[in-house]
C-alpha cells in the first residue's frame, strides 16, 4: 500500500477544517463528499455496439461473446447496490450484457452476519465457429433425414448453437453465532445441437452376414447433428458448525441429469457417395442402410446423492487438522425406450455406483522455523451395475464390465526456514490405483493389455528465498515413478490372463497410457524482481519430461514440455501504467505405432501482450492492450522398417501431415470521460484478426466430404472490428 506522503495538503480532514474556518454550512458539503466515498455505487450503462465483417468473419470472435449473429447490439448494464446503514442490509440488482444472448441478471439481499438470499439468471451460448453445408434436415430433433447433395457445397448452410440458461437460487442463515445454514439450487437448461455423426463399414466382424453382405466393401460416414435438450439440476444444503477450535460442515448434495432424448436416428434417403464422391455403384446396400439407420444412444438420465461431513480442528494454534468423509449413491436407470434387442428382462441398465471418500490432513509448525504437512485420501468406488450379455460379436457373446477402482493418495511435506532468508521444502507423494478384478465374462477390445494395479511414488524439493526486499525467487524439482502389477493379456474369447512382459506380446502391442510405467521429472524456477520503485519484473521457467515404458516399444513413449515467460509492470507516473508479457510454450509428444510410424507431435506457442492504462486528466481514463498469440503444431512422422511400402511412398511423396498454425491478434482500447460528477461516456474499440491454417475439414482446397457430400467450413482468415459506446449514469 502506498500512503499519502505525496498529498499531505489535500486530506479530507484539512478540507473539513478549511470549510469550518470559512463557513460552517459548507461542512455539509464535505460530509456529502465523504458519504459518497463510502457509499456503495449504483449505475446504469446504456449504449450500442456495431461490428464489421460477415457472420463467418467473426466466428472466432463471436464463439462465446454473444456477438456473432447480428451487426448491431444494444449494450445495457445495470448495477444497483444499496445498503441500509442502520441495519447493514444490502440489496443488489445487477444486469450485465442485457442486450446480448449472454445476459446475466442477479438479485439478492442480505443482512450481514444474519441472512442472505439471491437469485441468478445466466445465459451462455456457444456458436460453433464452423459452418456446415449439408442436405441433412431435422437438426434439433432426434429424427434426422439424410439426402445426398449432388455436389459438395450445394446444400444449406447450418450453424450449430448450444445455449445454456442457468437459474440459481441461494440462501444462507446464521442460526446462532456458531451455526449457519446454507442451501442452493441450480437449474440449467441446455438446448441446441452439436456436431456428431456415425459411420460403418461392411463387411465387418461385428456384423457378419446377413447383417452385412458376405462380400463387397461398402462404407459410409454421416454428419448427424446431436440434438441437445437436457436439464441439469443441483441441490446442496449444509449446516456449518464452528467453535474456537472446531469447524464442521455436514450436508447433502444432489445432482440430476435429465435428457429429453434417449436416442436419435436418421433416415437415409436414396444413394450415398463412394470414397471419391461419386454415387455408390452398386448402390447403397439395404444392409448398410439399415445399420446407418439404427438408433444411436444419447446420454441417459442419471442422478447422484451425496452426504458429506468435512471440517477442521485446531489442536493448537500451530497444529491443525482437516478431514472429509463423503458417500455418494449414483444411479442410472433411464429406460432403454425405443431400443430393441436388450438382454431379456432388462428395460434399463440398472446402473448403481456407490462411492466412499475419506480424507484427513494435518499441518503443524512445531517450532517457528519448521512446517509439516501430511495428507491422505482414499476413494472406494463400488460399481453395482448388473452384469448382462449386452454384446455380440459374430457368435461371441459377452457382458458389460464394471469400474470399481480403489484409489489411495498420500503426501508428506516438511518446510524449514534456513539461514539467509532461504526456505527449503521436501515432499513425498504416493498414489495407488486398484481397478479391481476384470469381469471374466467381459471381453477386451482395442487394447493389448490391462493392469489391475498401478503405483506411483515421488518426491519434491523446493528452495525458496526472499533474497532482498525487492527480489525473491524459487526453484523446485519433482521426480516420480509409476509402475504396476502384472499385465493382463486379453484372451481370444472372454476375460484376461495374467502374463509376463516381453515375448508373449506381439511387438506391435499398445498399452494404455494411464497404466504403463512412467518416470516423470519436472523443474520449475521463478523470480520476482522489483527492479526500481516503478519497474517490476517476473521471470519463470518450467521444464518437464515424462518417459513411458511398456512391454513393447509402441504407444506413448515420451513427452517433453518447456514454458518460459517474463512479465513486466512499469509505472510511468502516478497516473499511467504500462504492462507487458512474453511467453513461450513448447511441448512434444512421441507416439510410436504398429503401422511403423513414429510420431513426434510438437506444439509451440508464443504469446505477447502489451497494455497501458492512464488518466490523462481528471475526467478522462483511457486504456488499451494488445495480445498476439501464435501457435504451431508439427506432426512429424518417421517410419521404421516394419512400415508398409504404401506408407513409405505416401510419406516420401506427401511429406506427411502439414503444420497446423493459429495466429490471433487482438487490440482493445477504451476511453471513459466523466461528463459530470454522476455521468460519463465510455467508448470501446476492439479489433481482432485470426488466421487458422489447418486440415481438419479440408486440405489444400480439397474438403473432407461426408458420404452425403456434407462439408464443414471455417473461414481461415477472420478480421472483425467492434465499436461500442455507452452512456453511464450513477444512480442516487
Amino acid at each position, binding site marked *: 500500500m502506498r500512503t499519502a506522503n505525496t498529498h499531505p495538503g489535500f486530506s479530507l480532514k484539512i478540507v473539513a477544517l478549511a470549510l469550518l474556518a470559512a463557513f460552517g454550512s459548507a461542512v455539509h458539503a464535505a460530509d456529502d463528499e465523504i458519504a459518497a466515498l463510502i457509499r456503495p455505487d449504483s449505475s446504469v450503462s446504456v449504449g450500442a455496439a456495431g461490428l464489421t465483417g460477415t457472420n463467418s468473419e467473426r466466428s472466432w470472435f463471436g464463439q462465446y461473446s454473444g456477438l456473432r449473429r447480428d451487426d448491431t447490439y444494444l449494450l445495457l448494464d445495470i448495477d444497483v447496490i444499496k445498503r441500509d446503514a442502520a441495519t447493514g442490509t444490502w440489496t443488489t440488482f445487477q444486469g450485465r450484457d442485457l442486450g446480448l444472448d449472454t445476459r446475466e441478471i442477479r438479485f439478492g439481499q442480505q443482512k450481514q452476519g444474519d441472512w442472505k438470499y439471491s437469485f441468478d439468471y445466466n445465459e451462455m451460448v456457444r456458436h460453433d465457429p464452423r459452418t456446415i453445408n449439408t442436405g441433412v434436415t431435422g437438426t434439433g430433433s432426434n429424427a434426422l433425414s439424410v439426402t445426398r447433395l449432388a455436389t459438395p457445397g450445394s446444400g444449406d448452410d447450418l450453424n450449430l448453437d448450444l445455449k445454456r440458461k442457468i437459474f440459481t437460487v441461494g440462501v444462507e442463515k446464521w442460526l446462532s453465532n456458531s451455526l449457519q445454514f446454507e442451501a442452493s439450487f441450480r437449474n440449467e437448461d441446455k438446448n441446441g445441437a452439436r456436431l456428431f455423426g456415425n459411420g460403418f463399414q461392411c463387411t465387418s466382424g461385428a456384423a457378419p452376414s446377413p447383417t452385412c453382405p458376405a462380400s463387397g466393401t461398402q462404407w459410409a460416414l454421416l454428419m448427424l447433428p446431436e440434438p441437445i435438450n437436457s436439464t441439469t439440476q443441483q441441490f446442496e444444503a449444509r449446516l456449518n458448525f464452528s467453535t474456537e477450535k472446531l469447524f464442521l460442515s455436514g450436508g447433502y448434495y444432489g445432482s440430476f441429469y435429465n435428457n429429453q432424448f434417449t436416442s436419435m436416428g436418421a433416415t437415409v434417403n436414396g444413394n450415398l457417395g463412394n470414397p471419391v464422391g461419386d454415387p455408390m455403384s452398386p448402390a447403397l446396400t439395404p444392409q448398410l442402410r439399415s445399420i446407418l439407420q439404427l438408433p444411436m444412444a444419447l446420454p441417459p438420465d442419471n442422478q447422484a446423492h451425496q452426504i458429506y461431513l468435512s471440517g477442521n480442528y485446531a489442536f493448537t494454534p500451530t497444529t491443525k487438522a482437516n478431514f472429509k468423509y463423503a458417500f455418494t449413491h449414483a444411479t442410472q436407470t433411464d429406460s432403454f425406450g425405443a431400443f430393441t434387442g436388450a438382454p431379456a428382462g432388462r428395460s434399463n441398465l440398472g446402473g448403481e455406483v456407490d462411492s466412499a471418500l475419506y480424507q484427513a490432513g494435518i499441518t503443524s509448525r512445531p517450532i517457528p522455523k519448521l512446517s509439516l504437512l501430511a495428507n491422505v485420501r482414499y476413494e472406494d468406488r463400488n460399481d453395482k451395475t448388473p452384469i448382462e450379455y449386452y454384446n455380440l460379436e459374430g457368435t461371441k457373446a459377452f457382458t458389460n464390465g464394471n469400474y470399481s477402482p480403489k484409489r489411495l493418495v498420500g503426501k508428506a511435506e516438511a518446510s524449514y526456514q534456513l539461514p539467509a532468508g532461504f526456505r527449503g521444502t521436501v515432499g513425498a507423494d504416493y498414489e495407488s490405483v486398484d481397478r479391481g478384478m476384470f469381469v471374466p465374462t467381459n471381453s477386451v477390445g482395442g487394447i493389448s493389455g490391462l493392469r489391475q494395479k498401478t503405483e506411483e511414488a515421488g518426491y519434491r524439493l523446493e528452495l525458496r528465498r526472499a533474497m532482498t526486499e525487492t527480489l525473491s525467487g524459487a526453484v523446485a524439482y519433482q521426480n516420480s515413478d509409476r509402475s504396476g502389477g502384472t499385465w493382463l493379456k486379453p484372451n481370444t474369447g472372454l476375460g484376461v490372463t495374467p502374463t509376463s512382459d516381453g515375448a508373449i506380446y506381439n511387438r506391435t502391442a499398445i498399452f494404455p497410457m*494411464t497404466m504403463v510405467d512412467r518416470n516423470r521429472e519436472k523443474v520449475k524456477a521463478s523470480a520476482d524482481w522489483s527492479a526500481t520503485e516503478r519497474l517490476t519484473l517476473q521471470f519463470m521457467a518450467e521444464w518437464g519430461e515424462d518417459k513411458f515404458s511398456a512391454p513393447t516399444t509402441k504407444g506413448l513413449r515420451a513427452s517433453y514440455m518447456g514454458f518460459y515467460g517474463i512479465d513486466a509492470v512499469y509505472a510511468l507516473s502516478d497516473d499511467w501504467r504500462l504492462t507487458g508479457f512474453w511467453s513461450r510454450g513448447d511441448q512434444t509428444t512421441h507416439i510410436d505405432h504398429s503401422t511403423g510410424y513414429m510420431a513426434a507431435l510438437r506444439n509451440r506457442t508464443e504469446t505477447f501482450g502489451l497494455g497501458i492504462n492512464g488518466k490523462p486528466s481528471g475526467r478522462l481514463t483511457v486504456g488499451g492492450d494488445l495480445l498476439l498469440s501464435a501457435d504451431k503444431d508439427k506432426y512429424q512422422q518417421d517410419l521404421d522398417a516394419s512400415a508398409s511400402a504404401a506408407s513409405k511412398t505416401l510419406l516420401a511423396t506427401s511429406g506427411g501431415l502439414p503444420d497446423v498454425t493459429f495466429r490471433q491478434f487482438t487490440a482493445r482500447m477504451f476511453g471513459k470521460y466523466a461528463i459530470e460528477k454522476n455521468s460519463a461516456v465510455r467508448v470501446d474499440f476492439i479489433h481482432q484478426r485470426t488466421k487458422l491454417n489447418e486440415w481438419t475439414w479440408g486440405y489444400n482446397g480439397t474438403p473432407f466430404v461426408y458420404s452425403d457430400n456434407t462439408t464443414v467450413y471455417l473461414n481461415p482468415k477472420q478480421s472483425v472490428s467492434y465499436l461500442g459506446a455507452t452512456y453511464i449514469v450513477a444512480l442516487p
Partner: protein
Amino acid sequence: MKFLRQLFASCVLLGALAGATGAVAADAAPAATKAPAKDLVLKGDAKCTSCHDESDEPKLLHIGKTKHGTVADGRAPSCTNCHGESDLHTNNPAKLKERPPTDRSFAKSSKTPVAARNESCISCHRKDSKRSHWEGSAHERADVACTSCHQLHTAKDKVADKRTQPEVCFTCHKEQRVQVSKPSHHPVLEGKVACSDCHNAHGSIGPKLVKRDSVVDTCYTCHMEKRGPFVHSHEPVNEDCGNCHNPHGTVAESMLKSRPPFLCHQCHTPHGGQLAQLRGQLPLQPTATSSGKSGINYTQARGCLNCHTQIHGSNNPSATNPTPQFNLR
C-alpha cells in the same frame, strides 16, 4: 477530488479574509488538538483517518463501500483489527523520517510473515465452509497471502468478479493465460466462466484445488451427461477427463490434448496399416473401392470419432449384431 481541492483553496482565502485566526497548516495535526478526531467509516478509524484518506492508494475510505465497511454488522473490523494497533507507526516516537510500518502490513514488500497476514483474515473467515481446507492447500503452502489475490479497500475486488478474476489468477498461472487464448477453450476471457467455477483457491480435497472432490465430479457439474454409468463405458472417461482434455484450452477441437488418431493411439491399436493421411494429399488418392478404415477417415473431420462416436460411453443396449461395444452408436 478536484472540487474539494478548489473548495479548499477558496475556503483558505475566505477564511483569511474573514480574519480567521491562524493559518491552516498543511499538516492536520494542529487542528486535531482542538477537536477529537471523528471516525469517518469504521468504528475507531479516526486513529488512522486523521492522516490517511481517499487520496491514498488504495483509496482507504472506499472500504466503506464494502462488506468490511458495513458498521451495522457488529463483526465488521476496524483498521486496527487487520493492521494491528501499530502505535510505533502512529506515534513515531523515534521521529523517524519514514514512519515505521504498521504492525501488520499487506503490501507485496511487507515484512509481515504471510501466515501472520493471513491470520488477520482467517481469524474471522474461518467459519466459511469454502475455506475449511485452506491449511495444507497448495496456495497456503506456497505462501500466497489473501491480499495477493484480494483487494479490500475497493468496492470492486477484481478476483470477486468473474470478468476480471482471470487477470488475478494469471499473475502466477502464466501457462493457463496462454492456454485460454487457444482456439478451443472455455469462455474464460469472454467472462462467462471463471477460474473459480472449477477451482477453489481456498483449498479442496481434490487435485489441483478443483472445486468438488475430484476432476470428474467437477466437470460433471456442467457436463453431467458424461457421468453414466453406461452400458458401454470408456474407463479413462470415468477416471479423469484430463486424460484426454486440457480444460484450459488447446488447438485441437473439443479441448483435446492432441488430435485423433494420435490421441487414441496412446492406448489403442489401429485399424490396418495406414498412415495418417489427408483427402487430396498425393500420391495415394482414394478410389471408389477404398476401405472406410482409411488414414483419411481416422485423421480428418472427427478422426477416430467419425465412427467411434460415443467416446464418452453408450447406453445402447442392443445385443444383436452389430452391437455397439466399440462405442459405435
